[in-house]
C-alpha cells in the first residue's frame, strides 16, 4: 500500500473527503423539501385570495401546531398531543369551525429543548401555523418563549405550571393550567380560613418550583399581617429527611404545606410520622403519583392536594360522561386519566377561542376575542376568564384528601379571595 503514488493518494482523499460533507448538506436541504409538497397547496390557496394573508388560514382550513415528547423518558406526556389530535378530528367530523377544518401538526421533541426550538421554527416558518396549542414542558416553553413573542404567534395553553409564562404578561401567550403561585395561595387561604391553622411551615424543593410555592405562602401571610412561615428546604439529591422532619417539628407549626416531588414528599411524611409529629398536611398537586402512598405510609391519610380538572372517573358529572364517550370513540387506545383529560380540555378551550374569533380569522382578532373571554364554562375547567392584562387562566381548584391509598374529592371548586 505504501507504494501508491503519494500525489494521487492525496488528491483522491481530498476530493473524497468532501463527499460526505456535500452529501449531508444537500441531504438536509433536499430532505426538508419533501413536506413542501403537502404545504404547497395551502400557501397557493392563501395567495389567490384577495384578503390579507394570515399564516395558516384559508377559507377551508386553519393550521394549528403543538410539540411534546413522543418517545424517551418523558414519552408518557405524548398522549396529550394525541388526544388533542383526536379532539380536532372530532371537530372536523362535525364540520369544522366557521367553515374551516383544522389541520393539526404536532411535533415530537423527545423532551429536548434543542429539538423544541427546531420543531417550533418548522411549525412557524415552514408549516406556517396560525397558532399553537398545548406545547409541553417548562424548560421547553422557556426556550421558545422569546421567539414566539417576537413572531406574535398565539400559544393557547402551554402545558406547564410555571408562572413565568403569564407574569409578566406576554400578549400572545395564554396560560391556562393552575400555576404554582395560585395553587400555594389557595392552599394557604384554605388552611387559615377553613382548617383553622395558626402556624404554617413549608417543606419545599430548593429550586424555582419550590421557591415559587414558598413565596406565595409568605405573601399571603404578609397580606394578613401574620408571622412568616418557617421554610425547610431539600435538594433533589437528598435521600435522608430526618433532619428536615426535626426542623419542621421544632418550628411548632400545626400545618405543613409541601412543595415537593413524590419521592422526597413521601419520605418527609413518613419521617414526620416516625417522630410522632402529626401536623395538618397540604400539598402541591405535583406530589400526585401512585407511589406516594407506599413511600409515606399511614401518616399521609388526611393530607389535602389540589386539582383543577374534575375527577376523570366521576361519572355523575355530565362533562366527564361526554369526555369518556369522546375517548371511547376517537381515542380508544389512549388511557382515561389526567393526561388525556388535559389534552381534551386544551382542545375545548382552543375551539371556543376559534369560534369566537369568527369567520374573518386573524391572529389579532383571535387574541382580542380571547382577551374578552369571561367565565367560560364550556370546558372541563369550571370557569375560565382572560383579560388584556391577565393571561394566567385557571384560578380555581378543589381539594382531594388522601385516604387508604387514593385521593378522594372533599370540596367543591374554590377560588382565590
Amino acid at each position, binding site marked *: *500500500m505504501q507504494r*501508491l*503514488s503519494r500525489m*494521487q*493518494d*492525496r488528491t*483522491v*482523499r*481530498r*476530493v*473524497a*473527503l*468532501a*463527499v*460526505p*460533507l*456535500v452529501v*449531508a*448538506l*444537500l*441531504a*438536509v*436541504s433536499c*430532505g*426538508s*423539501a*419533501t*413536506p*413542501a409538497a403537502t404545504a*404547497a397547496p395551502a400557501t397557493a390557496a392563501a395567495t389567490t385570495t384577495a384578503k390579507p394573508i394570515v399564516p395558516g388560514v384559508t377559507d377551508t382550513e386553519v393550521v394549528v401546531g403543538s410539540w411534546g415528547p*413522543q418517545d424517551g*423518558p418523558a414519552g408518557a406526556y*405524548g398522549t396529550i398531543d394525541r388526544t388533542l389530535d383526536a379532539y380536532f378530528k372530532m371537530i372536523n367530523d362535525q364540520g369544522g369551525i366557521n367553515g374551516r377544518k383544522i389541520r393539526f401538526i404536532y*411535533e*415530537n421533541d423527545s*423532551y*429536548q*429543548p*434543542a*429539538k423544541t*426550538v*427546531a420543531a417550533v*421554527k418548522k411549525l*412557524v*416558518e415552514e408549516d406556517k401555523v396560525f397558532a399553537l396549542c398545548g406545547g409541553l414542558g*417548562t*424548560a*421547553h416553553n*422557556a*426556550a421558545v418563549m*422569546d421567539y414566539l413573542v417576537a413572531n406574535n404567534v398565539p400559544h393557547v395553553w402551554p402545558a406547564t405550571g*410555571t408562572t*413565568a409564562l403569564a407574569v409578566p404578561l406576554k400578549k400572545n401567550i395564554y396560560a391556562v393550567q393552575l400555576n404554582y403561585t395560585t395553587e400555594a395561595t389557595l392552599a394557604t387561604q384554605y388552611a387559615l380560613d377553613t382548617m383553622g391553622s395558626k402556624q404554617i411551615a413549608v417543606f419545599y424543593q430548593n*429550586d*424555582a*418550583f419550590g421557591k415559587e410555592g414558598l413565596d406565595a405562602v409568605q405573601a399571603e401571610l404578609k397580606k394578613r399581617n401574620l408571622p412568616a412561615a418557617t421554610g425547610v428546604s431539600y*435538594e*433533589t*439529591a437528598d435521600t435522608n429527611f430526618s433532619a428536615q422532619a426535626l426542623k419542621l417539628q421544632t418550628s411548632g407549626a400545626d400545618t405543613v404545606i409541601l412543595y415537593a416531588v413524590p419521592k422526597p414528599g413521601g419520605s418527609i411524611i413518613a419521617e414526620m410520622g416516625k417522630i410522632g409529629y402529626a401536623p395538618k398536611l397540604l400539598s402541591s398537586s405535583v406530589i400526585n403519583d401512585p407511589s406516594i402512598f407506599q413511600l409515606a405510609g399511614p401518616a399521609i391519610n388526611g393530607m389535602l392536594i389540589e386539582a383543577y380538572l374534575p375527577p376523570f372517573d366521576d361519572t355523575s358529572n355530565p362533562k366527564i360522561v361526554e369526555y369518556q364517550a369522546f375517548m371511547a370513540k376517537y381515542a380508544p*387506545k389512549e388511557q382515561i386519566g389526567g393526561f388525556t383529560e388535559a389534552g381534551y380540555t386544551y382542545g375545548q378551550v382552543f375551539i371556543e377561542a376559534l369560534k369566537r374569533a369568527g369567520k374573518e380569522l386573524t391572529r389579532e382578532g383571535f387574541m382580542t376575542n380571547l382577551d374578552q373571554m369571561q367565565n367560560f364554562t364550556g370546558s372541563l375547567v369550571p370557569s375560565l376568564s382572560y383579560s388584556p392584562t391577565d393571561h394566567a387562566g385557571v384560578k380555581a381548584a378543589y381539594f382531594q384528601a388522601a385516604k387508604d391509598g387514593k385521593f378522594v374529592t372533599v370540596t367543591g371548586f374554590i377560588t382565590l379571595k
Partner: protein
Amino acid sequence: MKVRWLRTRGRAMVPYGVGLAVVVVLPALLDVVPGIAPGYILYLVSLALIYAIVAIGLGLLIGHTGQISLGHAGFFAIGAYASALLTLRLGLPFVAALLVAGALTATIGFLLGLPALRLSGPYLAVATLGFGLAIPQLVVWQGSWTGGSSGLHGLPLASLPLGAFTIVFRTDQDYYYLAAAVLVVLTIFARNVVASHTGRAFVAIRDSEIAARAMGVDLVRYKTTAFALSALYAGIAGSLYAHLLHGISPEDFTVLLSVDFLTMIVLGGLGSVGGALAGALMLTFLQNALTRLPVVHDFKNLYIVVLGAILILTIAFLPRGLAGIVRSSRLRWAARVRDGASRVDQIIELGDGGVPQ
C-alpha cells in the same frame, strides 16, 4: 513551497474548499427552494455543525487515542453553563465567554484525564458515564446561581467586535455562519494535531500502550492532552449551543446526548476528522428528517426503528463508517491508476483486510 506543503504533509485542502463553498452558498440555495423555511433549516444545520465540533474533539480522544468517553455531554454542559453565566451574570462579551468556557472545560478535561490514566476500556466508559450523569445533577443542586432545573434564559445575542465595528449575530443565517466559521477553524486545527508528533503519539497509545511507552511516548502527558483537547472542543461547542438557543437547562444535557456523540463518530468512522464531521451531520439530519416519515398504523415512533436499522446497516456494511467509503474508493482509484483495472479487486481485498491507516 506551498505545493510541497500540500503534498507532503497531506493537508487535504480541496475538500475544505468545496465544503466552504457549500457552506457559503447554502443560505442562497435554501432561499430559492420553494416551500421550505430557510431559518428552520439553517437552525438545524447550525445545531449539526455545533455537534460536529464535539464529535471532532471526541474523535481525537476515542478514534485517535483509544480512550473511551461516555460523558461528553458533561463537558458540553460545562461549556454551555460557563458561557451562559459569564455573559448573563458578569456581562462578559460573547467572544471572551467562549474562550473562558473553552479554557475551563479543557482544564476539567485535563483533571478528568488524571484518574483516566489508571482506567481503560469498560472501566473508563463507566467512569466517564458517571461524570456525564453528575454534571446536570450538580447544576440542579447549585440552583441559586445556575438557575436549577428551570435553567438560564434570555442570553444576549452573540457578537464579535472587529475594530470600530461589532458584528451582531442576529438571524439564523448569521449564527449559521458563526458556527461554520468556528467549525472550519477547529477542523483545520484537529487535522494539524493529527498530522503532528502529538497525533502520532495518540495513535501509538491507541495501538499499544506498552509499545508506545517503549518508544518514549509519555503516557501521562499525551493521555491528559487528549482529554483536555477533546474537552476544549466540547466546551467551545457548548458555548455556541447556549447562544444558539439563547437559553439552557439541565434537560439539554442528558446521557442520551453523550450516546449520540459516540454514535456520530462511530457512524462517521473512528480515527478520521472528516468522518466525525460527516457522522455528526448525518445523525442530526437523520434524527430530524426521519420524524417526518408518515405515521403507519398509529406507530408514531416508527422513525426510531428506521434510525436504528440505518445505524445497524451502516455498521454492518461500513465498519469504518462513512470515512470507510472514502478510503475504499481512494484505494480503488489509486490501484486502477497504478496497475490498470485488472488488479483492482485484489487490491481492495488487501485494503479491507489491512490495519486502519
